[in-house]
């Protein structure tokens, strides 16, 4: 908004100005002009819908007309969002946190191998990481339902070994976390790989020259150098995973629903749920924003941003 207002002021010279002044003005315009398409896009498709969402989250129900609302300043929608749906919020954060942790455990060795050990296999590995994106996210999750089905190889093997307490893998929280981990793994691998790949090898060698063993070098040199990638990766994994509802819907049970599922059901399945759904969306957004803020402040990301 302020950028747009500034553009308006900068153009205040008008066409009657002498030529040199206009040229200078033109030059100072340039960054704003370049910003314009992006700013307009954000304004029309982000700011306006967000405003609308906020007004909806404060609406009240017409008494006697479920499904109709009037404009109001009704903060009880937020109270309901937080009290009635606290378990789902907790689950969202927990599952997203677990998925981020597992994705990190899987992604770091993979990215490390790609950056330092892969040699001529590096491109093949990169393609293998990116290739799943050529298929739709939903289709891949549905495919996991098939792979983990009761009659499928995984579940039947585990069942034969009596390792499955409930007798099935789908419709459990473990399946939801596994699905989230799988779906967001590339978002963790790629930033870590990028930061490891551009790390200066001589610095790592210097660690060895200074009599640090392999592990100490890794802990004091390699890992800190890759931190920007780790932070970017955790954010890119955690944020979408916390808002995801597809995995919980397709792989989970009725007692593993996340916030995304509640928003969907308040919006589509409950009569008169619009304001609460909007309040839930806003609360989730604020919650994630606050967590990211603290996280970024704590670990610092001058290189990331």
């Amino acid at each position: 908004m302020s950028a747009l207002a500034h553009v308006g002021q900068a153009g205040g010279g008008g066409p009657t100005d002498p030529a040199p002044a206009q040229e200078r003005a033109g030059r100072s315009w340039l960054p704003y002009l370049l910003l314009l398409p992006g700013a307009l896009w954000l304004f029309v498709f982000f700011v306006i819908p967000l405003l609308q969402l906020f007004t909806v989250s404060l609406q009240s129900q017409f008494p006697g007309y479920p499904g109709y609302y009037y404009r109001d300043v009704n903060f009880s929608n937020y109270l309901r969002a937080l009290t009635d749906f606290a378990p789902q919020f907790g689950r969202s954060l927990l599952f997203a946190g677990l998925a981020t942790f597992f994705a990190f455990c899987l992604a770091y060795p993979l990215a490390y191998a790609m950056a330092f050990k892969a040699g001529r296999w590096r491109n093949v590995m990169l393609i293998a990481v990116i290739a799943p994106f050529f298929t739709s996210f939903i289709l891949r999750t549905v495919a996991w339902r098939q792979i983990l089905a009761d009659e499928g190889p995984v579940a039947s093997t585990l069942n034969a070994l009596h390792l499955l307490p409930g007798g099935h893998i789908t419709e459990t929280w473990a399946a939801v976390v596994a699905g989230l981990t799988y779906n967001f793994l590339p978002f963790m691998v790629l930033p870590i790989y990028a930061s490891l790949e551009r790390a200066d090898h001589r610095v790592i060698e210097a660690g060895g020259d200074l009599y640090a063993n392999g592990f100490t070098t890794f802990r004091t040199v390699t890992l800190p150098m890759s931190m920007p990638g780790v932070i970017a990766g955790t954010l890119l994994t955690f944020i979408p995973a916390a808002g995801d509802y597809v995995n919980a819907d397709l792989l989970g049970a009725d007692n593993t629903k996340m916030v995304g599922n509640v928003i969907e059901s308040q919006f589509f399945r409950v009569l008169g749920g619009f304001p609460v759904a909007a309040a839930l969306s806003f609360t989730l957004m604020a919650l994630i924003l606050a967590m990211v803020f603290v996280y970024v402040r704590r670990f610092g990301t001058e290189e990331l941003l």
Partner: protein
Amino acid sequence: MAPFRRRPPADPAVRGLVRAARGSQLSRRSLLGGTALGGVAAALSACAPPTPPAGGAAALELPTDVSGTDKVVRWSNWTAYLDYDEDTKKYPTLEAFIKDSGIRATYSEDIEDNDSYFNKIAPQLRAKQDVGADIFVFTDWMANRVVREQLCQPLEIIRMPNASNLLDSLKDVSFDPGRTNSLTWQSGFAGIGYDKSKVGKELKSLDDLWTPELKGRIVVLSEFRDTVAIVMQSQGVDITGGWGRTEFEKAVAVIEQKMSEGYIRRIKGNSYLEDLKSGNALAGIVWSGDLFVLRAETGNDNWQFVIPESGGTLWSDNMMVPITSTHRKNAMALMNYYYDPAVAAEVAAWVNYVCPVQGAQEELAKSDPELAQSPFIFPSADYIKDNNIQGFPALSPEDDQAYSAIWQKVQGN
């Protein structure tokens, strides 16, 4: 890289556009200011939620009908609900209608379930904006809501001579007395479906479902008017009336208990069929016609559909004309066509749901005498009575909201 050259566009129309675009550059600044201010104003005014209908006293304003000049009718329906030819990828009865009447009918299977379809289009309906359909199909209870909120147009029986073929039992329904707003498309039952070979025994009552062999292999419908109603029937409640929140909650408690004990794996919408196909589920509370589709698709005749001993539910889906449609007459012509017994028989033979058209049984007997005896397509009054098959009553808006909220809680939402 090839050098970039700018050539004037050859097409005069394009040249005109370019000139117009250049001309408009002068006013860019005012345009910007205008967009910013106008955008905020438009956003805020668009936020104003639609107001509820004035009530029964106010006359309903219908949109001008353009059926005569615009020979189109757009029909939104549920999946697997109209005879379909796999080879030609066409709907034979609908093709015949287009040929006879000259009305271009388009058919889309865009209704996934009552709630999600209604909630998707409701804001537009209330704001009187076209929803891309001239006929939509809702189950009784949702049809009730649509009628109550005046979101559909009254039908003119005089334009639909075949409508008198509607079964007597469906002519006077609680949500639409005298059928002035709706016409039944198909009806069906909810009951127990299971794979006989895998279960290894016959399931007769709801309690038969709760056996150790079926632990974690049961799915139930997300429609509470089927699932909760069937549990209520098993508890001896007459679901057609005389019950309240206590009885509803008592039935819900059973479902919650069976979920926590691990019998019920998931409460699901129409996608429960996928679980039956993949073998994740071996039994469940299901819709009658679906089990016939399952049999045909898997080639496994062990799939059984039974009405539990304590009773099952009967529901109907109803064709209605959205309040926003400008093709009301075309829509009525289409409804009239499907109430021709011969056409109805053709549809019934494919969908295997209860046919609401009198005379269709005789028509079907001509081509397939065995199918014409199926109680799932043409149930006799005795069959319905003996099996305690009941319809779920219309709920008041408040009860509707309260029960669906309880039901969403059960589903973890």
